[in-house]
C-alpha cells in the first residue's frame, strides 16, 4: 500500500475519508468501548452531487448512443425484413428490386475473409507480443510499442491502396503456384482458364490485407496481458533451470491465455467489420466464396460501402438490414471478447 509509506500525520479526525472501511469489531480488550472508530458518513456537497450526476449522464449517454444505433437500424431495416421474411437469411443474391436479397452469401464470405485474416494474424501478432514483452531490449521496447500503435493508426484506405497496388502483384505468383500444385484440395482450386487476372481480387488477398490490420490490435492486447505475468513465477521458472522459451511457454503463455482468446475475438470482430480495404480489393460476387483464390468475395460492410449510392428506399432498407445483422454480430463478439479480456487482466477492476 502506498499509504503505509507516507509518514502519518497526527491522528486528528479526517473529514472526508468516506472510503475507509470501518472496522467491524471493537478492540479485543474491550476496555475502551468508547474508542471504537465512529462510522464516518460524509454527506456529499451539492457541487459533488451535480458533478457525479454529470459524469453518470456521460456514462449513460454512451449506452444511449448504442441503443440509438440499434433502434434506428431496426426502424429502417424493418421494411426490408418484413418484405423478405426468413428468406433474408437464406438467399444468396442481392437484387432488392426483384425482392431477391439475403445475406446467406455475404455474411459467410465476410466470415471467411475474417478467418483467413485471423489464421495469418494470430501467430504473427502473438510472436510480436512475446517479442516485445519478453525478448526485446528494454530501450527498444518503447519504440516497438510505438510501431505497433502506428500500424493500428494507419488509415484503412491506405491498407487498401497498398494491398491493391503493392501486395497483390507480388503474391499472385505464389497463389498461382499453390492453385496449380495443390489444386486437388477443393478450397485452393481455381476454376476456369488460368490467366494472370484469375488469381487477383480474391477472398484470400482481402484476408491477407485484413490480417495486417488486425495484427496490431491482437498484438497490443496480448503484450499488455503478457507483461503482467507475475515476476515471481517467471523467476521461479528460471530458478528451476528453464531457458527463456521454457519460461515463456510455462509461465507467460498460460497466464495470458484468456487475453489471447479475447484478443482473437476482438480481432475477429474487427475483421468482420472492415470495410474500405475489402471493398477496394474484392470483385463483388454474391455467391458463397468456397474457393478462396478465385475472383470473389464480399462482406456486409463492403456491400454497404459499394451499394449505398445506387439505392432506392427499398434497397436502402435492405442495406440497413444487413448493417443491423453486422452490428449485432460484432457487438456480441466484441462484448464477449472484452469480458474475456477483462477477466484475464487482473487488477483492472480494482483500485
Amino acid at each position: 500500500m502506498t499509504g503505509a509509506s507516507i509518514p502519518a500525520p497526527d491522528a486528528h479526525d479526517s473529514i472526508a475519508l468516506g472510503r475507509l472501511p470501518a472496522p467491524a469489531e471493537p478492540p479485543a480488550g474491550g476496555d475502551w468501548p468508547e474508542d471504537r472508530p465512529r462510522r464516518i458518513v460524509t454527506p456529499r456537497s451539492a457541487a459533488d452531487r451535480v458533478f457525479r450526476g454529470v459524469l453518470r449522464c456521460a456514462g449513460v449517454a454512451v449506452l444511449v448512443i448504442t441503443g440509438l444505433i440499434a433502434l434506428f437500424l431496426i426502424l429502417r431495416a424493418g421494411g426490408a425484413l418484413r418484405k423478405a421474411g426468413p428468406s433474408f437469411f437464406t438467399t444468396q443474391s442481392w437484387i432488392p428490386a426483384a425482392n431477391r436479397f439475403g445475406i446467406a452469401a455475404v455474411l459467410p464470405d465476410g466470415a471467411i475473409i475474417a478467418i483467413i485474416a485471423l489464421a495469418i494474424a494470430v501467430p504473427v501478432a502473438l510472436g510480436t507480443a512475446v517479442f516485445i514483452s519478453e525478448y526485446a531490449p528494454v530501450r527498444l521496447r518503447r519504440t516497438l510499442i510505438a510501431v505497433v500503435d502506428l500500424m493500428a493508426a494507419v488509415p484503412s484506405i491506405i491498407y487498401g491502396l497498398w494491398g491493391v497496388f503493392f501486395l497483390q502483384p507480388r503474391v499472385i505468383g505464389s497463389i498461382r503456384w499453390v492453385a496449380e500444385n495443390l489444386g486437388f484440395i477443393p478450397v485452393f482450386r481455381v476454376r476456369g482458364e488460368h490467366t494472370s487476372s484469375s488469381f487477383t481480387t480474391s477472398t484470400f488477398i482481402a484476408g491477407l490485407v485484413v490480417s495486417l490490420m488486425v495484427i496490431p490490435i491482437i498484438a497490443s492486447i496480448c503484450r499488455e496481458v503478457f507483461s503482467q505475468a507475475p515476476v515471481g513465477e517467471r523467476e521461479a521458472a528460471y530458478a528451476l533451470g528453464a531457458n527463456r522459451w521454457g519460461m515463456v511457454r510455462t509461465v507467460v503463455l498460460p497466464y495470458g491465455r484468456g487475453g489471447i482468446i479475447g484478443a482473437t475475438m476482438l480481432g475477429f470482430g474487427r475483421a468482420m467489420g472492415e470495410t474500405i480495404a475489402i471493398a477496394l480489393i474484392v470483385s463483388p460476387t454474391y455467391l458463397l466464396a468456397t474457393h478462396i483464390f478465385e475472383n470473389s468475395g464480399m462482406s456486409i460492410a463492403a456491400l454497404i460501402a459499394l451499394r449505398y449510392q445506387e439505392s432506392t428506399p427499398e434497397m436502402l432498407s435492405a442495406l440497413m438490414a444487413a448493417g443491423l445483422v453486422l452490428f449485432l454480430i460484432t457487438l456480441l463478439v466484441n462484448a464477449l471478447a472484452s469480458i474475456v479480456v477483462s477477466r484475464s487482466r487482473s487488477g483492472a477492476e480494482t483500485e
Partner: protein
Amino acid sequence: MDTLAPPDNRPANLEHGGPGTQAPAAPGPAAERRVRIRQVTMEGVCTLVGAALGGIALTWVLYQRILPTSGAVGFWLCGYVTFLCLYALAGVVQWEPRDVANRLVGVLLVSAGLLVIAVVADQIGYTAVRGYPALHHLNFFTDTMALAGPLDPLTSGGMIHALVGSLEQMGIATVFSVPLGVLCALFLVEVGGPLARPVRTIVEAMTALPEIIAGLFIYAFLILSLGVGASGFAAAVALTVMMIPIVTRTAEVILRLVPSGLREASYALGGSQIRTVLNVVLPTARSGLATAVILAMARAVGETSPVLLTAGFTKDLNANPFSGPQTSLPLYIWNYVRYPQPAMVSRAFGAALALMVMVLLLFALARLIGGKAPGELTRRQRRQLRRAREADQLVRSDREAGDRSLALELTGADRGADAQ
C-alpha cells in the same frame, strides 16, 4: 525507463525497487550488480548469419532459376523457411535440443517483430514513392478538382477542398467527442457503481464497432430521419460516434493509472470530489489524456467509411461544414483511385501521402507530449521534488529515526532516478 505500470499500479518514481523493474541501486557502498546470463557468442552469430545467407542463396537458385515459380512474397517466404531449416540443422549439430528450440523460437519471434516493422515502413515508403509525383506540384495544395478532368495532367487540379474538409470534420468531431469521452471515462473511474460494468463492456465493444455502422447510423438518423443533408457536419457526427469509445477507453486506462494515494491525500485534506478530480486527477493524467485525444484524432482523420455515407462528394471547395457536400481526404482517395487513368490514381496516392503525413504528425505529437505514465515526473519536477524533500528533512530533523531513514530512502530513490 520501463514505462509499463508495475502490477500494483504504483507510479514508477515512488517505488522502492520492486523486482522486475529497473530498480535504482541501493545507496550502499558496494552496489549490487546483476549477473548477465545471456551472452552473444561468436558461434551463435555465425550460425545465424550463415543460415540466413545459405537460405537466401539456396532459395535464389531453386526458386528463381530452377523451379517455375515467381513473385516476391513467395521468394521471401521460401527463403525464410529454408533459413529456419538450415538454422535448426546447424543448431542440432552443436547445441543440445532444448537450446536449439530456444534459439529457434527466438528467431521466430524476432522475425514476427521485424515483419511488423517492415510492413509499416513499406506502407509509408510505398505511399511516399507513389504519392510524390502528384505532391511535388504546388497546385496540388492550392487547387480543387472542379476544373480538372480525368485526362488532365497532374499540373492541374488538387486537393485543397479535401484537406479543408478533413481538418474541419476532424475538428468538429474532436470538439464533440473529447468532453463526452473524458467525462465517461471519469464516470467509470471516479464514480463506478453497478452502472459502470455495462457501460465499460459497451464502450469496449463499441471501440471495435465497424466504422461503416457509424456512417449507416448517422445516415439513417440525421440524413433520412431529421433531413439534414449530406454535409461535413453529418460526417463529423459520424466520426464522433466512432471517436467517443476510443477516447473513453484510452482515457479510462490513463485515469486508472493515477495513484489512488493522490486522491486519498486530496480527500484527507478535505477536498470535495469535484475539487479532487479537477485539481488532482486530471492534472496528473494531463499528458496521457492529451496523447489519448491526439491518437483518437489520428484515427478519425483516416476513417473513410463513416464519411463515405454522410459527407457526400464534391469537386469544389466547400468551407462551410453545415451545408452542402464536403469532401475529405479519405473520400478523395476512395473516389479517384478507382479511375482507370494513371493521373487520377497518382492524385489518389498524393492525397494518401498527405493523409499519411497528417497521421504521422499527429502520432509524433502524441509521442512528444505523452508517453509518460501518470505520476511519472519530468526531470525538472523531480529536481523540485527533491529540493522540497530536503527542506522537509531539515525541518523534521528532530523526528525519530524511522522517519529519517524513510526520507533518506526516498531521496536515494530520487537520486537513482535522476542518474538515469
